[in-house]
């Protein structure tokens, strides 16, 4: 607070203190009152005005605030005698920034700095303005001026950072780095450097120019002592040496680091890289675009002779073994895994050393097999083994657990879990008979239950021993579902997870699995409940929304979807707004490397594919929500600038370098990324579904989606216009029926839309007509059915106005209309008829049906509304000279038919939904539970569920399990779980029904209106 006070604009501190206090405590009305008093005394004080503007802006009165600010700015410019103090300017700056007028704030500071050229405070304010505007060149110029004025190191570094930003994030060429280097060199010669971060920047400037030798010289000189953490210095040295090609010296440095930090895996890889003269471990790091790196260690085939290679790897082995001995009593995994990596490299370079690899793996298992991370640690090394060897390894592990090396129960459990995991990873479980596959799942649940006593004294917040067994069981059960298509296994899996959550409610791994299982079952509202319990907020919205967002986008849960999108977009936009201030904070605290990092991070988020998709989808959702009321729809369109910005986005998307920040690690095996769900396809064997890195394919797909969807708002706008013009009495005004601009723009967009569907406009029209009349198979639509139907609807609207496909007054116009009606009927009504009960057919056609009703059919509803509105008598005499009586009445009849047809379609959907909802809840609950009731001894789902039931019904010993676990077990109810599933899918259906009912109502009203025409 204190810094806000002073003699700003000649006003004493005591007069403003109260106002600031009122603002800080959000008492804006009081603040406004006090500010009026102040203004009565100082009516022409820019500071007093700026304060008032600040209060008004906080009260939401943006226009008033802006006008007062502009007034203050004018006074500031006019009055020569007034002081240009930073307090006035910074107050104005805050308001201008909040009103999205950064340029005006910058203007004030530019003016002030021009007037008082040697005022450092004002220059810093100006620099800050340029930081906010990301004007790197002007930042640099201002920083240099400050540096020249006071000669301080920090201002030089501000300038250097601004230069780096021009190179990395702007249009500056790499030659600019030479300038930065020159500036630093000169300063170092005369003043040296005093901040460790300054040295890091200096080195990075040299490194970016590949001047590794110069950088090393500086680092080993006097300046090197600025880096107080020895390891940090060594790491830089090692990297520079390796990059310069001096691998021998690099290896020595990395040895030193490993002596200090024997567990440093990255350093060990660099050490190996140096020994084998392989620079892939550095070039991989340079590629900063990928934040989620694939789980493998990059290496290239060595150019070294076998003899040299063997010798060096033996040296590495000896070096690492030394640490193994030193670290034998602690938890350091590094040296042990390093041996494995050395063996793997030997193997990659052609040596048949399977025995050594196997031995190293077994040793690692003996040492760390009980750890939860064992399997992910060794995954990479197992890949080297052939299938038989993998099985041999597994057998060895299984044998070892029959006589475990330890008697500590938690460790014994850990070892058994690891064996299960390895079995899942390499054991070809799906090749076993189903009954054994099932038994595998049952064993894991039994093990979980048997080991619960180990956790009886743990705090409920702590993770329990053996918790992962239930996630693993779920994974096996879903495999069984994929293999047999028996829905009971999915129910089994759900019961297992719900059981686990009843015992401890905090296990996020179970929750994520449930989100996906419930989504798959169509109980999306239940999936969303579990998703919400994960408390996904702030930056996690960028990285883990993918668990739910794609499902929600295809659902009728519009309120939840709208909240999801709004929260996410607000988070991103807030960050874009505040990021520059945080960058300035890094400047002020002399953490220069963070300056670059912050700007690059903001850019990364701005280019996020998910952010762009969310922006488009949020607008489309708004449009979908208002399709039953054309006036409200037009209001939304107006707020979206009639879709123009989105067309621009669509135009630009090809040239944008999108980022993919989603973290897919936590996704279940059956859907490694949102576009893939193995369960929807035929069973291919478990080893068929690796968590592949599909970035390139996804990127192309996302671009296509954004490009296409971004066209929708504009096409909807033009569609309404086009339909309206087709019947309007504007014919009286200029005698022309069509409005050429609308028509040509819509045609242009139709051409683009068709192109995105892989066709020319002519071909696309032919496809649509062919499919609607049955001359072409609907396979022509491929997986883009919704988009093709959208295209057909927009095509019809365009044709109403352009008549390019027909002569005015001809029947072609209504012909297309009939075809569109037929298409909508074919795809919606027929799909509805083929729908079965949701619980019986997971993920069925519901998402597509929802999309068909809320997109093409809804847009077609807008065409109808627009036509009806235009054809209603407006009180004037009947039109003359417009479309002929014949064609008008033909069109009116077509409209009437189309209204009836659309209503019939929606009524049919509504009827199906009602039938679904109407089913007695107990009946559906019973169906779900019947999946789980095992009859006889043969294979089939329910075995795991019955185990759970037997656990819960057995007498629970409080001595053995403590008090909390038995209580939780008693409260667990499978019937409640089944009931939740039923409610979950009913909620989705009810929402869909609500949407349909509104459409029916709107279509009925339209029919009545048409009766007046």
């Amino acid at each position, binding site marked *: 607070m204190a810094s806000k006070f002073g003699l700003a604009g000649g006003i004493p501190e005591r007069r403003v203190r109260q106002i600031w206090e009122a603002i800080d405590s959000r008492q804006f009305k009081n603040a406004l009152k006090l500010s009026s008093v102040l203004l009565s005394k100082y009516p022409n004080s820019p500071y007093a005005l700026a304060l008032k503007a600040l209060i008004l802006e906080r009260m939401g009165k943006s226009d008033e605030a802006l006008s007062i600010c502009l007034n203050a700015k004018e006074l500031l410019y006019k009055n020569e005698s007034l002081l240009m103090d930073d307090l006035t300017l910074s107050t104005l700056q805050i308001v201008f920034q909040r009103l999205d007028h950064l340029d005006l704030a910058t203007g004030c500071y530019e003016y002030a700095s021009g007037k008082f050229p040697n005022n450092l405070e004002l220059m810093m304010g100006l620099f800050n303005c340029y930081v906010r505007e990301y004007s790197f060149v002007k930042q640099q110029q201002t920083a240099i001026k400050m540096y020249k004025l006071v000669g301080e190191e920090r201002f030089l570094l501000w300038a250097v950072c601004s230069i780096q930003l021009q190179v990395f994030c702007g249009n500056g060429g790499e030659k600019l780095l030479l300038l930065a280097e020159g500036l630093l060199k000169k300063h170092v010669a005369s003043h040296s450097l005093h901040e460790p971060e300054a040295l890091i920047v200096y080195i990075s400037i040299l490194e970016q120019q590949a001047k590794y030798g110069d950088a090393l010289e500086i680092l080993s000189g006097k300046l090197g002592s600025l880096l107080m953490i020895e390891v940090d210095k060594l790491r830089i040295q090692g990297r520079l040496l390796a990059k310069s090609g001096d691998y021998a010296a690099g290896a020595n440095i990395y040895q030193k680091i490993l002596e200090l930090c024997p567990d440093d895996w990255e350093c060990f890889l660099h050490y190996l890289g140096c020994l084998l003269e392989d620079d892939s471990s550095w070039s991989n790091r340079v590629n900063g675009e990928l934040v989620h790196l694939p789980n493998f260690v990059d290496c290239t085939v060595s150019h070294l002779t076998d003899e040299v290679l063997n010798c060096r790897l033996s040296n590495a082995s000896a070096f690492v073994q030394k640490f193994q001995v030193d670290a034998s009593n602690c938890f350091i995994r590094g040296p042990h895994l390093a041996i494995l990596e050395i063996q793997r490299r030997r193997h990659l370079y052609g040596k048949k050393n399977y025995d050594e690899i196997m031995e190293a793996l077994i040793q690692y298992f003996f040492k760390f097999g009980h750890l939860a*991370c064992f399997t992910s640690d060794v995954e990479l090394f197992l890949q080297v083994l052939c299938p038989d060897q993998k099985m041999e390894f597994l057998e060895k592990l299984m044998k070892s657990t029959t006589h475990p090396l330890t008697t500590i129960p938690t460790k014994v459990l850990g070892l058994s879990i690891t064996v299960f995991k390895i079995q899942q990873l390499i054991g070809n479980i799906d090749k076993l008979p189903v009954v054994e596959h099932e038994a595998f799942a049952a064993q894991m649940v039994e093990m979980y239950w048997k080991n619960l006593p180990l956790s009886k004294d743990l705090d409920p917040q702590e993770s329990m021993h053996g918790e992962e067994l239930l996630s693993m069981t779920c994974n096996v059960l879903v495999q069984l579902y994929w293999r047999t298509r028996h829905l009971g296994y999915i129910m089994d899996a759900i019961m297992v997870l719900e059981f686990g959550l009843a015992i401890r409610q905090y296990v*996020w791994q179970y929750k994520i699995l449930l989100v996906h299982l419930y989504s798959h079952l169509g109980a999306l509202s239940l999936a969303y409940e579990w998703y919400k319990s994960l408390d996904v907020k702030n930056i996690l919205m960028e990285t883990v929304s993918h668990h739910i967002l794609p499902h929600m986008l295809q659902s009728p849960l519009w309120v939840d979807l709208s909240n999801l999108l709004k929260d996410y977009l607000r988070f991103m936009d807030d960050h874009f707004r505040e990021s520059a201030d945080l960058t300035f904070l890094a400047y002020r605290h002399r953490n220069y490397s963070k300056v670059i990092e912050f700007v690059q991070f903001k850019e990364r988020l701005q280019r996020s594919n998910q952010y762009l998709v969310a922006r488009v989808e949020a607008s489309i959702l708004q449009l979908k929500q208002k399709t039953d009321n054309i006036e409200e729809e037009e209001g939304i369109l107006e707020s979206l600038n009639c879709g123009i910005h989105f067309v621009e986005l669509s135009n630009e998307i090809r040239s944008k370098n999108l980022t993919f920040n989603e973290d897919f*690690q936590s996704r279940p095996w059956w859907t490694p990324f949102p576009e893939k769900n193995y369960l929807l396809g035929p069973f291919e064997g478990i080893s068929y579904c690796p968590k592949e890195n599909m970035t390139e394919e996804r990127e192309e797909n996302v671009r296509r989606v954004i490009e296409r969807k971004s066209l929708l708002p504009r096409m909807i706008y033009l569609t309404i216009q086009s339909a309206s013009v087709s019947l309007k009495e504007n014919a009286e005004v200029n005698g022309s029926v069509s409005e050429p601009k609308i028509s040509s723009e819509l045609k242009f967009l139709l051409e683009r839309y068709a192109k995105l569907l892989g066709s020319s406009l002519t071909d696309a029209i032919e496809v649509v007509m062919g499919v609607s009349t049955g001359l072409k198979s609907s396979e022509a639509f491929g997986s883009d059915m919704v988009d093709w139907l959208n295209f057909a609807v927009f095509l019809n609207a365009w044709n109403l106005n352009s008549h390019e496909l027909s002569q005015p007054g001809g029947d072609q116009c209504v012909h297309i209309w009939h075809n569109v009606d037929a298409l909508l009927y074919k795809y919606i009504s027929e799909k509805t008829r083929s729908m079965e009960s949701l619980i019986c057919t997971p993920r069925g056609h519901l998402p597509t049906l929802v999309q068909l009703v809320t997109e093409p059919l809804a847009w077609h509803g807008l065409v109808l509304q627009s036509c009806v509105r235009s054809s209603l008598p407006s009180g004037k005499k009947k039109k003359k000279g417009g479309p002929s009586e014949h064609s008008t009445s033909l069109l009116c009849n077509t409209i009437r038919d189309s209204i009836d047809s659309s209503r019939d379609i929606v009524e049919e959907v509504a009827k199906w939904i009602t039938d679904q909802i109407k089913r007695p809840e107990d009946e559906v609950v019973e169906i779900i539970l019947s999946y789980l009731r095992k009859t006889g001894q043969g294979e089939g789902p329910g075995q795991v569920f019955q185990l759970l039931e037997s656990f819960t019904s057995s007498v629970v010993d409080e001595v053995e399990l403590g008090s909390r676990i038995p209580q939780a077990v008693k409260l667990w109810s499978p019937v409640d779980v089944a009931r939740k599933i039923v409610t979950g899918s009913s909620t989705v259906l009810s929402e869909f029904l609500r949407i349909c009912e509104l459409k029916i109502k709107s279509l009925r009203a339209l029919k009545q209106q048409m009766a007046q025409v």
Partner: protein
Amino acid sequence: MTTIRRFCCNDLLRFASVNFDHLTETFNMSFYMTYLARWPDYFHVAEGPGNKIMGYIMGKVEGQGESWHGHVTAVTVATEYRRQQLAKKLMNLLEDISDQIDKAYFVDLFVRASNTPAIKMYEKLGYVIYRRVLRYYSGEEDGLDMRKALSRDVEKKSIIPLKRPVTPDELEYD
């Protein structure tokens, strides 16, 4: 198997599996970035093979005179990597930086009074309960202010427990 290095912005995109833990708060961006902009040496991440994030620590250094101290704002380890003393390694790192680079007198941290496992862990690491802060967490739950003296506090004055609890208003720092 653990690389401990400075936390960077991109790590925010990779720490989901750590932050899914219900006791690990996901703060807003300006919170993380303020820590990165002001105290980058106090924000470290531990990375395992396959570049997986194992855990991280964030903290700061602040105070006047003999209250100049390191502060642990958050320390957390992913479920998969627990029971390997990783939290200890991260805490030791922050303590070393406070002690050797910033010459602080002590390191402190706040913990929910109900979070017994965490309290036990901090006690094992040499922290003592310095004072109780009434209704520190959202005006509901009490917090415990735990401290560990560093080498500069030769007489260990900084960790002599206060006899009475304090209210959040009485805290010197946020």
